């Protein structure tokens, strides 16, 4: 083995997987460029683009003024001209400042007048990092309701890299929700060759027969942990990782639920009007005859994400929440 293959076979973190995807796409396609706050000299708040400016120059790694609406709008303009901007939100929470450009301009342009907007917005989201109300949000639900956007939320280094590459190559605006909690906590060996994870495909992360636990993002790991625990009690969970929220892989979700006849929906975004609510409605419409019990949701309460540790612990879904729901459902 050459040194290179040895290195390639080393484990990379979720964060490094994202960084690799950006680097490889920028090398592959000179139309790809990055915009965001502090991503250049500093390498980004989470250091995902460390060294990029030295490698690609300040016109492909653009440090922007602190103006999310302005630079998302600019990315839209550049995308329509044929470039492939990848915008970084310093934290997903600040995407609210760009809400208008995303939902009114990027999302509607192709529908209204046929202008494709091939761009990616990377949004570090989620809690469990003591971020408080403005550095822990899961804003995907706001955009889930806006036709014209694609939304992905990977849970593993493999998916993180493959989905980011697919997002960059997609001719539509793609919101890429990357989970901050996972950045340096999970690792994997990735294929040395170029690959993508197709947008719109869910992935069964653990096969099981009794209950479908449908989730995405960091909650996938919580689901897997709960599944191991419940296996000891003889409850066999199937963990379905949505990976893509829009377009939703209904076929894969239905296939799983038709097999197990029971479903739990788990997410970190708050409960009301969330992705779980939509999937529950879909299951009621399309899988009613297959259901042997109520569709259950596990999600934080309808409050902002709190700061103090006991408050946030209470707020976030836990293994015990999943166990309680699964035991209840198993009894049907």
């Amino acid at each position, binding site marked *: 083995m050459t040194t290179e293959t040895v290195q390639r076979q080393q484990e990379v973190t979720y964060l490094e997987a994202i960084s690799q995807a950006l680097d490889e796409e920028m090398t592959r396609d000179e*139309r790809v*460029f990055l915009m965001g706050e502090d991503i250049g000299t500093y390498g980004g708040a989470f250091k995902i683009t460390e060294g990029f400016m030295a490698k690609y120059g300040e*016109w*492909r790694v*653009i440090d*922007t*003024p602190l*103006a999310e*609406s*302005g*630079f*998302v*709008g*600019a*990315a*839209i*303009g*550049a*995308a*329509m*001209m*044929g*470039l492939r*901007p990848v915008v970084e939100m310093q934290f997903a929470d600040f995407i609210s400042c760009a809400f*208008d*450009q995303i939902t*009114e*301009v990027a999302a*509607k*342009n*192709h*529908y*209204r*007048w*046929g*202008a*494709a*907007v*091939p761009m990616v917005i990377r949004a570090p989201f989620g809690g469990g990092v003591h971020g408080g109300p403005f550095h822990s949000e899961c804003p995907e639900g706001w955009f889930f309701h806006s*036709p*014209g956007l*694609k939304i992905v939320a990977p849970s593993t280094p493999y998916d993180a890299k493959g989905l980011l590459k697919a997002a960059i190559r997609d*001719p*539509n605006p793609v919101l890429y929700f990357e989970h901050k909690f996972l950045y340096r906590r999970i690792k994997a060996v990735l294929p040395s060759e170029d690959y993508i994870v197709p947008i719109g495909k869910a992935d069964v992360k653990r096969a099981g027969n009794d209950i479908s636990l449908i989730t995405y993002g960091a909650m996938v790991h919580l689901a897997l942990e709960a599944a191991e625990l419940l296996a000891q009690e003889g409850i066999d969970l199937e963990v379905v990782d949505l990976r893509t929220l829009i377009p939703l892989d209904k076929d894969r979700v239905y296939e799983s639920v038709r097999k197990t006849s029971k479903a739990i929906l788990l997410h970190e975004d708050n409960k009301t009007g969330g992705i779980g609510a939509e999937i529950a409605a879909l299951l009621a419409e399309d899988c009613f005859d297959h259901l042997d019990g109520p569709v259950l949701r596990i999600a934080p309460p309808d409050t902002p994400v709190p700061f103090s540790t006991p408050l946030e612990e209470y707020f976030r879904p836990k293994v015990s929440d999943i166990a309680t729901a699964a035991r209840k459902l198993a009894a049907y």
Partner: protein
Amino acid sequence: MPAVQEQSAGTLLERYAGNLTQTPLLCEEEPMDPADVTRDIKRADLLQMYYYLRLTRALEDRVTALYRQGRIVGGVYTSHGMEAIAVGYASALERNDVIAPFHRDMGAFLIRGFTPGEVLAQYLGKRTGPTKGKDGNVHMGDLKRGMIGFVSHLADNLPVATGVALAFKIRGERRVAFTGTGDGGTSRGDFHEAMNFAAVRKLPVVLFCNNNQYAYSTPQRLQMAIHDVVDRAKAYGMPGEIVDGNDVAAVYLASKRAIELARAGGGPTFLEFKTMRMHGHSEHDPAKYVPRKLLEEWKKKDPILKAEQLLVQLGYGDDAYFHEVGERVKKEVEAGLEFAEQSPLPEGPEVLEGVFAEKADSY
């Protein structure tokens, strides 16, 4: 307390109208020197601009008439009395430059090759309109013709135009983006974010304000605490200029200067086109809040009238010529209307088409 009593006297509208007369209402710009015009604008270009002024007026008057007959169901926002702005700046641009227009820029669409037939089809919600019935009125665009679609949300197009300019800069192309919004639109954050980004990165973009003194019913004095919007350019570190927005030659020349500066790598310019909204905000709005006297004054400065005066002065045109152009544009608009009326409406299920793109091209 007499002051309070005085304040509450009269309706809100009357009070606004009264206060309005405290702000200077007319553009105080000096008229263009004909010598400058003949030196800097080709005769053919000036005549072409005159034609587009007339075509814009004829087309929008036809749209207004259709609206009054109840044949157009959506909103109608015209550039009546402000045609010189879009006609002037769009004439100053090169073909491969890109325009991210404002909602009273019909002249720019026509200059970029949108036909009266297409525009009327758009207004009538026909499948042959540029948005195939997906959107109405001036909410249209076409990247092949260098027109970015207008978005209702005012000032949203300004950041987008900075991105167009950024693409030109990244690719090393000598192209320019041109964009603008109204006096009302300049209050939005996107206006400021775009001005700032354009200046920081010295982008090849020209930004303008079409200052027609009102935003719907809101007069400029309730929109901002400054007299000239152009003052804002200074704050962002870019040059700015006040231009008589009713003088097509002045608009053309000021735009040309700004465009050439941007093309040469000199960065953005901000242009304030002073003008007056001569109709209601939309054709449903009788605009009773605008003092009649003000409109009478501005009518004397009508851009078509001014262009004709200039053409006569230069010996480029006379009444017979003006009449001939009038007949020509009338025919074109009527032919366009026939095309639009004969065009099919979209079918209901077409609503489902086009949410996502299958490919993305370069422009």
